[in-house]
């Protein structure tokens, strides 16, 4: 099977194989931070940035370090270490450049470290044997897809403030239901581009 080009991968990972709505990765921060569009946008941007960066770095870590030495089985721990360090770096940069965004993101910025979507993207690109450009495109697309999903959810939840939700379903429960409905809509696209 021929793998699609970087641009196709980029678009497909946003709309078709959305990391959150098709693979259900990165749900915890998705549910916790989707209350307001502003913070969702901040976290979404941070995820795009971290995902693109780590997929690029992890591609080199895997192909230049782990594969030649036959240490593929170390990829989980190696990827996590790279992601953790990258997030630390991003945290320092954000604190320096925009203290307001830094405080708005608060605890969620360090939480990106344990965001499974980030690790998931790095693992997928290894399994699918992407090239460097494809990996970058997949990372950027995966991040953009995640940001799109959390922005859509934040928009929905802001609109929902005035709707009467049953007390038992308020908060995370209704968010899960909404996510399910959004995922159903995305299933309609599935299979359009084989990845």
């Amino acid at each position, binding site marked *: 099977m021929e793998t699609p080009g970087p641009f196709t991968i980029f678009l497909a990972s946003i709309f078709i194989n959305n990391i959150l709505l098709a693979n259900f990765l990165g749900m915890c921060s998705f549910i916790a931070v989707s209350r307001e569009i502003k913070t969702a946008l901040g976290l979404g941007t941070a995820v795009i940035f971290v995902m693109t960066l780590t997929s690029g770095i992890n591609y080199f*870590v895997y192909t230049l*370090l*782990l594969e030649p030495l*036959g*240490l593929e089985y170390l990829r989980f721990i190696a990827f996590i270490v790279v992601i953790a360090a990258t997030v630390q770096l991003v945290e320092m940069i954000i604190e320096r450049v925009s*203290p307001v965004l830094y405080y708005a993101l608060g605890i969620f910025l360090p939480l990106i470290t344990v965001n499974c979507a980030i690790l998931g993207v790095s693992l997928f690109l290894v399994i699918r044997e992407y090239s460097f450009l494809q990996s970058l495109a997949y990372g950027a697309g995966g991040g953009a897809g995640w940001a799109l999903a959390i922005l859509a959810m934040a928009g929905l939840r802001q609109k929902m403030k005035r709707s009467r939700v049953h007390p038992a379903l308020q908060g995370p429960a209704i968010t899960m239901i909404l996510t399910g409905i959004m995922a159903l809509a995305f299933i309609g696209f599935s299979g359009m581009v084989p990845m």
Partner: protein
Amino acid sequence: MGSVVSAVLVLAGLGAFLALLLVLAEKRLASSGPVRLRINQGEPREVEGGEPLLSALKGQGIFIPSACGGRGSCGLCKVRILEGGGPLLPTETPHLSPEEIDNQVRLSCQVKVREAMALEIPESLLEVEEYPVRVEALTPCTYDTVKVRLGFEADAGFSFRAGQYVQVETPIYDGLSEPVYRAYSISSPPSETRFIELILRRVPRGICTTYVHELLLAGDRLKINGPYGDFYLRETQAEAVFIAGGSGLAPFEAILADMAERGIRKKATLFFGAVSRRDLYDQELLREYEEKIPGFRAVPALSKPAPEDQWEGETGLITEVVARGYESMAGMEGYLCGSPGMIDACIRVLTEKGIPEDRIYFDKFS
């Protein structure tokens, strides 16, 4: 065997490389080198950039009051930042009024020193100094409250107004990474210059009170700084109501001693709120002041007297007891000291009874 070694080497190498990268980044990003601070149009002082303004000022011997120790929860450490300081942070806005925001008032514990700054700090704070003290005595008041006597060195020259408070530095003890500061009102009279007394009620898991209650011994050395606060008796003709909860009796003990010594004539009633009889202390002292100070009356009130207390005095929440005591409080002054919740509730009652908010004085330590 070889694969095990290479696996360990690869992971260790990767970790070490990333750690090195982070250390370098921290050096370049976190600290911003020496920065000039200009305070009240004085000579610029050079401080190391990267730390919060509150601790940078402390390094310069300027002590801004902060009851929470720099966590951004008490809102006391306000200073005016005329230049530099960056944008207003979401952690500051809850503590600032719209006028304060217009006046460039900021919380010094939240603002980080990164660029040249021009500050305006009240002159009275510049006089605040740090004093080494020796713990002379620890006297229990109740089962969870203790009176601490701190003696000054011979030539310290500490002077304060009755009602003001000091900050005590809690030294580093287990689990504490840096010294923290907590504010306590002085209960001894200002005429006593050799020592001060503080009343500390034990707070569950409180950093400083746990230290004092469990580890502090007579003879230990501590550092305090102060005095702070504009909680002192206004010497007007107006009748005053003092409301104290728990260890909040401390500043009133100083004020009453001062009134007795200087013969200040002012009609005043002290309401002292506690849960049950075992939380009351210094009642004989208050009886003495009732005799010494004409027009002064003390009203202890228990919110939940235990059956064995045989309590015949006032019962109920302190706010209810105060509200019962007065038809109208117009023209009076209110002085409050206690927990933040008690103070807020008392302000509501006093304003309803006709005391304007600018005649209600309090120290809120949270």
